[in-house]
């Protein structure tokens, strides 16, 4: 093309504008895809169970040679991860685990000090996109209380729980609680709300539930987060880790605490009760295999980056409302191929219902394996780790 030639200039101009239009069209299409018309494309793309199984098995191949992996983070995920570390079939991969809270899991993955950061909360959008939030397993959170003398489960909804944490309700026999529990005898006990002092995925889930269920909650202005601005209540306490919450609630009469479902058995053994919580369809559900499965099944589309809130589904009539994915936060680009392969193999084994997601691992802690749509997303993410 000769630019001195007017015909050449016209041709150049036309091809440039064609390229410009093409680029704009492509970007418009991709933003449209991000904005939610992915519904159509992703529904077609969910693979069958056999295809998923095949992809998983391919990813589970462990590297040769010894690799050391370190995991840190969520205390809700910890009971499972620590068992995996001992029972992982490939002995050349050594896994170190620690229960430090989702905040530490996120920061460890961000800083690169941990190979896998376990977190109940996905990273904020502003954090680098080279960090993947890979969903691994489905977990939940219950609301525990220490009110001896109650026969049955106390029903609670988001606005009552919010009032307990803001100090508006100071006693368990408050009329607002009685209204939800007609016929249930609740002895008058002062309310002691307990929250997490460290950066916690459980706080993220709890504040998500309050924000979803109560538009006037104390987290309404800033939204859910791993640390929130807890209202000034003189009887309130803060503890470190799910285990701290459990231990303190067990010795404090009148406490209300949000604890991960992997500690439900311990909580019951310590004498704590757990609430029937109001879900998106205004039914009161206890955390259990059926209710968690119903909640997770109501989410048909999982975004490609795995970040989705499963709280308070508006579609699950019998679903338990405080349900989440446990995320493994991993750098997309690993320092060496052996580490990348080891991480992918471990996480793929963790998702496999014949491997780390077998009932023997998940049932005692009330977790559930990923549904097919989430597993497809996770497999794609694992494939991109190198």
């Amino acid at each position, binding site marked *: 093309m000769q630019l001195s030639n007017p015909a050449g200039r016209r041709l150049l101009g036309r091809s440039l504008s064609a390229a410009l239009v093409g680029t704009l069209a492509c970007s418009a299409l991709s933003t449209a895809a991000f904005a939610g018309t992915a519904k159509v494309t992703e529904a077609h793309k969910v693979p069958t169970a056999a295809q998923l199984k095949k992809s998983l098995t391919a990813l589970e191949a462990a590297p040769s040679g010894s690799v050391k992996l370190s995991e840190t983070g969520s205390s809700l995920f910890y009971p499972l991860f620590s068992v995996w570390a001992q029972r992982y079939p490939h002995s050349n991969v050594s896994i170190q685990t620690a229960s430090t809270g989702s905040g530490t899991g996120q920061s460890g993955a961000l800083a690169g000090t941990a190979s896998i950061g376990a977190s109940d909360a996905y990273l904020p959008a502003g954090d680098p996109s080279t960090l993947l939030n890979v969903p691994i397993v489905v977990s939940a959170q219950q609301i525990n209380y220490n009110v001896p003398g109650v026969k049955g489960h106390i029903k609670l909804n988001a606005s009552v729980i919010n009032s307990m944490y803001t100090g508006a309700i100071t006693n368990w026999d408050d009329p607002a609680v009685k209204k939800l529990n007609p016929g249930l005898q609740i002895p008058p006990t002062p309310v002691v709300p307990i929250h997490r002092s460290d950066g916690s995925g459980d706080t993220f889930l709890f504040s998500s539930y309050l924000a979803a269920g109560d538009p006037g909650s104390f987290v309404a202005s800033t939204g859910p987060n791993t640390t929130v601005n807890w209202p000034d209540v003189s009887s309130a*306490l803060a503890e470190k880790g799910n285990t701290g919450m459990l231990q303190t609630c067990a*010795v404090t009469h009148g406490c209300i605490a949000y604890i991960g479902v992997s500690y439900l058995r311990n909580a019951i053994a310590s004498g704590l009760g757990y609430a029937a919580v109001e879900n998106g369809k205004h039914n009161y559900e206890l955390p259990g295999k059926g209710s968690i499965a119903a909640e997770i099944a109501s989410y048909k589309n999982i975004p490609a980056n795995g970040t989705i809130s499963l709280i308070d589904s508006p579609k699950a009539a019998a679903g338990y409302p405080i349900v989440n994915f446990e995320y493994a936060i991993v750098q997309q680009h690993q320092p060496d191929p052996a580490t990348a392969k080891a991480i992918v193999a471990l996480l793929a084994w963790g998702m496999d219902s014949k491997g780390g997601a077998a009932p023997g691992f998940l049932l005692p802690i009330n977790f559930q394996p990923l549904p097919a749509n989430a597993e497809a997303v996770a497999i794609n993410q694992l494939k991109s780790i190198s």
Partner: protein
Amino acid sequence: MTDAPLEGELLSPAPRAPETAVAAPPGAFRRRALAAGQHLLGGGSTVAAVVPLFALLGMLAILFSEALPAIRYNGWGFFSSNAWVPGNTYAGSVRTGGVLHPLGAHYGAAALITGTIESSVIALVVGLPIAVGAAILLVERLPRRLAAGIGLCLELLAGVPSAVIGLWGVLSFGPWLAHHLYPALSHIPLGIFRGGYNSAGQGLLAGGLVLAAMIIPIIAATTRDLLRQVPDVTKEGALALGMTETEAFFAVQARWVRVGVIGAAVLGLGRALGETIAIALVSGSAIQYAGNIFSAMTTIAATMVSQLDAAQADPSGLEVKALAECALVLLVITLVVNIVARMLTRRAARGAALPVGAGF
């Protein structure tokens, strides 16, 4: 020439030229080597002397530069507000006045500063009388062997790591307090004892008592050493004048060690202000003003530790900078406390006959 030296000469001998002290005059090489050795030693000790100064100035400068965006964003509200709000980190960051921050981010350290000062004051009020009393008992009253044994235990206690004491506080001391001490205290008709307590025993009083347990060994050991330095002659002179032992104590020993005890108390206060893990475990970790003496609170150091990991997930980085601002505030408080104590001890020491117990 060879007279017996006078007393004055013994106390301040006349300087003698180094050459006359050596048997044979050294060669040029040896002289240069000696001079080089002098320079090396002089230079090395100069470096060692200025390193702490530069470390302190460097720490202040680095903290200040790290905290500067947070200082500009928070303004003076940092000292009057007690809200610690990271904001909506999931909604993206915006810029206000040149500082990147999440929507709704708002940091106030008033509750932290109040909590730090309150818990340290309780620790000092409870710990100082016990420590000084223990030191007096060890030096004045107990038989020498028993005093030596107990003194050894005291020194070992000073070395116990704070995490161990914190764990003891959470598992054993806190619940004990909640079952035995708090019910008794809550009957006192003063405002700070009203309002109830939680049965885990975590809160301001538990934190203050745990801090007291940590500073008692330091203050007691220092006071005991000071009391031992008091010359027996002065004690015997007071007793010979007809004073009782108590009067002699107040007239002689107390006056002698007064300045040093202030220094020891400041040492203990400095440890209490900066104590992190013990208070983090026992205080209840609630970022709020303590409603009464039993309620949960937190200190600057405990908050820095508990919030740092969550702060690093804040994409705008403002929460880490706000924690750096907290660290700066704690550093300044500690420096001010130490400077004031030095001024106090210097003023009191001007009147002392001998420099015993001064210059802490």
